[in-house]
């Protein structure tokens, strides 16, 4: 019997009552990137990049150029004062090429194929107007696709994640290590850059699976065995770490459950996202909310999905969206639990299950904490069922809705039915006015 929380068919708070299925891909769709306010690109294992209109679901361009699956994609919009804004996207593929596309014309701008290994991550340093590609080595490129500099060969496994840090630094996750590089202007050329390895951090016990920057002062990493480390972005020291927060015994406010074994799959930190206060971690099937100030997990949903959570994102309205291998997307809301004068935790209940002793202490500890800190919990407010296979990623477009991509080759645009309906009315009356039919009406 699955212990996953379910929500009935009545979902009052779920705004997504209309959907559009975008067909085009012929294989797993893994990446979605936002190009601008109303466009996004999708890419996946078929090596094709599609450009979509997020409002209408119209397919704008179909970009062909890669022969293998896409491994990384990054938007690169230049907002130079001199020239008009051009939206580019950079894609890296397993065919060891990187292509820059122009979103306005749907054309390939340039193609680089001098890589020795597959580029696994791309990062754009908007401030410096350069972009970095991470494979077995780290390369720095300018807009014109001139190779500015590159590091020596780092590892065969390659860089799995890159994040920009203050003071022209980047953090690269290479296996278990976290390497900090610094970019510095070279002496000989005006546009030349040098890249230097500054520091290697070896605190993780296992491969680093996710790396995210929280703010200018902190960034967070997560590893395969569920370590979460908060780093200082300026001096690269460990600020805090949480290494066994998936363990239910530590967190009393969570319904305990029977666990037979902890497979690494279930503890891997799949994805991290953050707002100013909290880091949200997708760990195994669960979602955990880690408060940076309190330095502890304040809320969690141990089994948020039937299988691994692949992507989570925090919405501005205290909502959290997660998608999972089970093909569903769930919308959560972080709520403050009403503080009750006396915590009605019946110890007998736990005794019945043989957890009595273990939890007693925990409960007491929790009680202590409850007295001075608010307690949060994640409530399921809606779920979106449409994909028939793992939902790889999603993209939140605010009012325009939500785009989800999946292993079933589809992209679904979820929309607020009410809003769409009134938009259509608006269009209708505009068209009526255009056709001059409005005058004929009384």
């Amino acid at each position, binding site marked *: 019997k699955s212990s996953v929380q379910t929500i*009935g*068919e*009545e*979902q*009052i708070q*779920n705004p997504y*009552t*209309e*959907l*559009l*299925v*975008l*067909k085009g891909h012929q294989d797993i769709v893994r990446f979605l990137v936002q190009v601008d306010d109303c466009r996004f690109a999708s890419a996946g294992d078929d090596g094709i990049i599609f450009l979509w209109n997020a409002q*209408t*679901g*119209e397919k704008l361009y179909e970009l062909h150029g890669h022969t293998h699956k896409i491994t990384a994609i990054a938007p690169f919009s230049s907002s130079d004062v001199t020239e008009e804004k051009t939206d580019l996207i950079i894609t890296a593929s397993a065919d060891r090429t990187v292509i820059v596309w122009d979103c306005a014309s749907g054309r390939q701008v340039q193609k680089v194929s001098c890589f020795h290994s597959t580029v696994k991550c791309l990062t754009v340093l908007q401030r410096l107007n350069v972009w970095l590609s991470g494979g077995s080595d780290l390369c720095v490129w300018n807009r014109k696709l001139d190779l500015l500099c590159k590091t020596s060969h780092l590892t065969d496994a390659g860089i799995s994640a890159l994040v920009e840090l203050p003071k022209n630094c980047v953090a690269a996750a290479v296996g278990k290590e976290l390497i900090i590089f610094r970019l510095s202007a070279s002496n000989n050329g005006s546009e030349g850059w040098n890249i230097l390895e500054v520091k290697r951090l070896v605190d993780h016990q296992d491969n680093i699976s996710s790396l995210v920057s929280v703010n200018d002062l902190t960034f967070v990493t997560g590893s395969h065995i569920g370590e979460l480390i908060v780093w200082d972005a300026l001096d690269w020291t460990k600020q805090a770490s949480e290494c066994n927060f998936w363990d239910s015994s530590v967190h009393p406010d969570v319904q305990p459950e029977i666990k037979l074994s902890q497979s690494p799959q279930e503890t891997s930190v799949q994805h991290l996202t953050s707002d100013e206060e909290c880091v949200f971690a997708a760990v195994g099937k669960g979602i955990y909310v880690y408060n940076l100030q309190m330095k502890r997990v304040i809320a969690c949903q141990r089994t948020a999905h039937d299988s691994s959570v692949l992507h989570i994102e925090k919405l501005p309205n205290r909502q959290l969206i997660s998608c999972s291998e089970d093909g569903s997307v769930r919308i959560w809301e972080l709520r403050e639990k009403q503080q009750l004068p006396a915590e009605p935790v019946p110890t007998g209940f736990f005794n019945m299950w043989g957890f009595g002793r273990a939890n007693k202490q925990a409960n007491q500890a929790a009680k202590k904490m409850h007295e001075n800190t608010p307690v949060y919990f994640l409530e399921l407010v*809606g779920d979106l*069922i*449409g*994909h*028939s296979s793992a939902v790889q990623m999603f993209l939140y477009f605010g009012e325009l809705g939500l785009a989800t991509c999946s292993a079933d080759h*589809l992209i*679904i645009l979820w*929309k607020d*039915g009410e809003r*769409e*309906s*009134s938009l*259509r*009315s*608006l*269009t*209708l*009356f505009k*068209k*009526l006015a255009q*056709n001059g*039919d*409005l005058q*004929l*009406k009384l």
Partner: protein
Amino acid sequence: MISAPDVVAFTREEELEDDLYREPPLPEEYSVPLFPFAGQGANPWAKVAGSKFTRDFILISEFSEQVGPQPLLTIPDDAKVSGTFDLNYFSLRIMSVDYQASFVGHPPGSAYPKLNFVEDSKVVLGDSKEGAFAYVHHLTLYDLEARGFVRPFCMAYISADEHKIMQQFQELSTEFSKASECLKTGNRKAFANELEKKLKDLDYTRTVLHNETEQQKKANDKGYYTTQAIEKANELASVEKSIIEHQDLLRQIRSYPYRKLKDSEFHPYEPECSLDRADMGNDQDSAASDPAEPGETHLFTRVPSYTPKLIKAKSAKCFDKKLKTLEELCDVYFFTQTLDQLHHIERTFRGDVCYLLTEQISRALLKQQSVTNFLFEDVSFLDEKPPEKQYRGCQGLGQDATDEKCSEESLAPKVVISLGSYKSSVECVPIKMEQEMEDSEEPKMSESVMSEHQENLDYLDADIKGSISSGESIEVLGTEKSGSGLTKSESQASLPVMPSPQAGRSKVGSRRTVSEDSIEVLSTCPSESLIPEDFKASYPSAINEEPYADDDEGGLRFTPRVNPGVDDGQDDVSKQESLVQVDAACCIGKESPNFLEALPELGQKPCEEDGVVRIPPQPYRPAEQGLRGGFPSHDGLSGGLLPYELDSRYLSGSREVSKSSLDECSDSTSYISSAASTCSDRTPSPAHLGGAAGERHRKRAGQNALRFIRQYPFAHPAIYSLLSGRTLVVLGEDEAMVKKLVTALSIFVPNCGVYAKPVKHWVTSPLHLVDFQKWKLIGLQRAVSPAGVNVLHALSRYSRYLSILDADSKTLRCPLYRGTVVARLADHRTQIKRGSTYYMHVQSILTQLCSKAFLFTFCHHLHLPISEREPEESVVSRRMNFLKHQLGLANEDIKIVQYLAELLKLHYIQEPGQGGNPLLRFDYVPSFLYKI
């Protein structure tokens, strides 16, 4: 479908109406007075007594110069159809009423024989002895070997129901004109070919003769010519004359102004340069004399090579010579095209006239509802151009010209009111004008016609005076080209605006009962197919059938001078003006049945006389202003989707498919019962192309739906699901049963666009989200296999988008319904017994829903704030208020209308040509399980 004959008949029964809820009265066009003999148990659709054939058919006859009138072929080509009906006799009859009196020969002042481009004449003929009434369409084809180069033919639509012929005169005329045009086009082509061959023969003969003469000249050194030489010279001269004559004929046939037919399907061979035809015709005078000139020959001839033959000097016309068949006269391609068209006509006009008219009205009304009609109607047939459409352009013109004409006509001398029209008609016949110019060969015949006219007029006169015994009478209400003037004068005399055929009918009606036999010729307008198209400024000489006449001899003008008031100015402008008048007159004659205002008067008159409804509902043509103006039609849109539509229509038209679709949902009992009940007519009435299948399908669907609502107590929530756009899956093991249920429920499914009904009868694979976008009603196989498990798994996964009707366990899982609309739609205690009637009932309620959805969609302030600062909440509350109180909708009914409104919006804002992404709308509402 808005209505059908079997419901129309009951519309005036008060008690029935009381039983139902209060309804607004029927639209005027639908109200038909009760059949007066209904009380005596007579079947209003009873077969007209005395007719010797089983169903309507088309007959093609020829007035053969060798054997006289003879029938050539019938459509359908089935001996059973005509039965004991005497085709030979009828051919004689129909051929004897040809008023066009085609003239060919040497007109005075002209050196060469002239081809007369005769217009088709269209007459209505009745033969009460045979119980046959016919629309007769005369046409003339050219044949070089025939006397006067012409072969008169006629096509007749023969029916036992004279009303049908009268009511459908317009449509018949249009359709037959198309067929005739097609035949004539092919004929011109063949004739030109023939002429060219003949010219080559003659050329060759001349060369041979010339050589012989030269040889004789050489051999003969005496100072005088031998008789032999003189003979040869004469022969040569006659051959040369013949060449010139034939060249002239060729030029004439080529200069025939190419008419642009509306239907391109009839005219795939139309040359690109047809626009220049008129000019070319003038310029060709010299050029045409050279038959071998390639520039023009390509237009007509594609003869690979032809070896000329020597022509005997005296090739006398002999009667043992075999005349060309119709197929030879026309190009084979055009001949088959014509046959196709005739078959099409036969299909279109099959069935009872009442049915045809109701159908036409419905179609016309539906067509106006361009915004909503796609929802529940089969709109594919609306794209078929109704016959009157092409005339609409000149209708306004015609009305404008009416006044002018009235004043002119009033100057014309008037005789007795009743006879005046007849007389004037005869006087105006343009044949006469031509006859005056003819040489003395022809007048005899036309005189006889004339005298016959006179005779009959006299006869009529006598008839009116009270004589009863009458052998035969011809009533001429108007013939070609005089039609306009005649109608006008007649209407001046009697009624202000009177539709001519009806007027004629109502007048003749009582009289006809006296005469044993009668032929009625109704206002047959000249060249009705010709003028609207050809009268475009770019064709100054289009009407003037012989453009060269002006160039050759100034004195000879064959411009049809219809209106005496119009002086035949030499300049183009005035000519055009006169053309306008012809056109206008034509349109008045043709279009006059449209004046619905005149109808009540007309309807009264015959009723008073004999209590028989003489005038069935009139073909309804939308007024230009009024209802029409509301919204733009989506012609562009439908144009974009055309291939699909064409395809589907084509499919539905084809026998096999319709048959298979019948089998699919076959239900023999209902078919038999419905066939027994509605089939008052001898043949089923097709609503439109492929309509027979559609009609039967509707009956079946209606029958099944009726059964469904009686059988399943949870029919209401199921129907609600369909109406609110929630996909309903019918799950079952037995394919036939599932398909039957799907067929039954399909009548409740709103269309999402014009292109496809979102119904899938049978699916065996697991459903996917995309399917719910496409289909709103799905029949799904329940299987025990592992695949079946997947199917069920998918169902439970997507259960929030679905309502599931389990046909095996008779359960339904779907949201709650508490509204009232569906209760009216599907009352299990309904008294309706027949499938087709129930279908109509459903359609009428759905139409109501549509109108509500329309109001809701297009009320501006319900969707947009009135002022800038108005909050969204007040708009929402206003919207809900409107739905609840103004439209009187309760609970879930609101969702139905909202869904329909959403479809309307999508349909309206959809850009033409762009399919648009199908979107899936859904609600997060709990479902309930219903059991029997």
